[in-house]
């Protein structure tokens, strides 16, 4: 398994996704437009974007790596550092904050013994606060677990989900909330 991962890491994006890259580039008259799509491709594969990937993307686009890194760093959703096996992101913008997001975030940090932005010592979880609205205000407070939306979330549900994640659960998009669909709540 480990060897397999090492072996795979040696493959370039071009080797792994040659056709996809070709397809992406064909969408735009200027290939520079493929910058964000290629950053996504790298992050979806590796979980984050390493310097090696930045250099590869720069080569594909004919840009300087500094430019790829600089533009990429403007956006919040790209990780330019390794993250845990699971990411847990608590929305703490105004509507979620009204519904107790700060308490939830404190609880999460206590429970996992990390500060916001850190990864647990066992490499399982990275905890983040979004600082911006994730557009699930009808399910506030919302939490994104491995990019899947859950809410309204309380401490007990969060504990349970952390345990399920440790037991090998990988949340699927369809397990998340159905946003916007009017429902009763008090």
């Amino acid at each position, binding site marked *: 398994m480990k060897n397999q991962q090492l072996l795979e890491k040696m493959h370039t994006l071009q080797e792994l996704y040659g056709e996809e890259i070709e397809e992406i580039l064909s969408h735009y008259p200027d290939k520079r437009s493929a910058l*964000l799509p290629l950053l996504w491709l790298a992050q979806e594969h590796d979980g984050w974007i390493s310097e090696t990937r930045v250099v590869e993307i720069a080569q594909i686009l004919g840009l300087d790596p500094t430019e790829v890194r600089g*533009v*990429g760093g*403007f956006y919040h959703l*790209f990780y330019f550092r390794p993250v845990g096996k699971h990411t847990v992101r608590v929305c703490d913008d105004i509507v979620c904050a009204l519904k107790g997001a700060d308490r939830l975030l404190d609880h999460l940090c206590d429970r996992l013994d990390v500060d916001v932005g850190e990864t647990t010592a066992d490499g399982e979880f990275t905890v983040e606060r979004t600082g911006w609205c994730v557009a699930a205000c*009808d399910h506030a407070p919302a939490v994104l677990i491995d990019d899947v939306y859950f809410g309204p979330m309380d401490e007990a549900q969060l504990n349970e989900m952390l345990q399920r994640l440790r037991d090998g659960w990988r949340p699927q998009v369809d397990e998340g909330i159905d946003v*916007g669909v*009017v429902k009763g*709540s*008090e």
Partner: protein
Amino acid sequence: MEEHIVLRDLDVPGIDDIDTYMAHGGYETLKRALKEMSPEDVTQVVAASGLRGRGGAGFPTGRKWMFLPKGVYPRYLVVNAAEGEPGTFKDRQILEHNPHQLLEGIILTAYAIEAETAYIYMRGEYLKALSQIQMAIQAAHERGFLGNNILGTDFSCHVYLHREGGAYICGEETALLNSLEGRLGQPRVKPPFPAAKGLYQKPTIINNVETLTNIAPIVEKGADWFRSFGTEQSPGTKIYALSGHIRRPGNYELPMSVTLRELIYDYGGGIPGDREVKAVIPGGVSAPALTREHLDITMDFNSLMEAGSMLGSGAVIVFDETTDMAWAAHRMMRFFSQESCGKCSPCREGTYWIVNIMTDLMRGTGDVSDIALLEAVASQIQGNTLCPLGDAAAGGPTLSTLKHFQEDYIAHVPVISSQ
């Protein structure tokens, strides 16, 4: 409201499937328009309908299309699906549940403005919406509604999905264009406006998801039908995304003649614990806060502007009587400070200092003079930035809460005992 115009998923289960969509008349309007109408005809119907942009600015859609310079090609259509205004989750429901009606609107609009390429610039977190739209594009291709020579005509249209990277500012149309070009998502100086020089310096129309989802019904049923909903200046329906202290949060599509009181009490079920309203933000956090005195206001573009606020994205956030509005302003300003793109110093520095001053107040280390200082900093941002983010931060959370809820700020000023 009997039937929904844009949230038709609430009336027709499974309308995200192309067969179901077509069984309910889907793509018939496109077929008819390509056969019987010229691009100008489509533009004229949309202009006559009085449809105004649903992304925040409320600019008349038909008039925007008419700004395109004659004879300059290629032209681009860019779909703004970078929904990021705090409190807003309306486009998301369309994208996830009614993708084909959006897509039919995109193709009709591309036909009207003579664009052969459309990009859907979508929020990076919207995994379900990304996959729904990608599947819808694929299905429309297979049926011949997209691609080269659509339905045997000489009109060709290709739609591409572009996943953005996470930056509120990229909802601003010129920042969006820079981002789509692979650059920093910072706003451009206007003019030139995107209609003249937009994506790749070519004529470009940027429309919001909800706006475009209105197009097929308008072309199908006509301008008069559309004008039978809402008000003279704000025809049609609007999705109000209701959240905060409310019993039934969610998206409500209603004619723009609904009042704030009806929205909160008749549709939203009122406030938990039967508490009183303290404040309402009627159009996302960029919109200045209103008070319970404003509850009988009609939720249309003009009435909200006259009341000193704005309809914005239609995100209605309710704050009950227990809310500390100084705390709420601090939280909203933290967002604006984080999301300021850094291009204009009044916004970059101003939002940073407003957060610092508010943080002092929250920690109990502020001073009564901070209230005047906040007003001064906010008023120096206003009017001095390229895009509306700075103005929104100043006029929205900062000045509107200082105006209506100053006592909440004063409550944070430490009491100094006199000697």
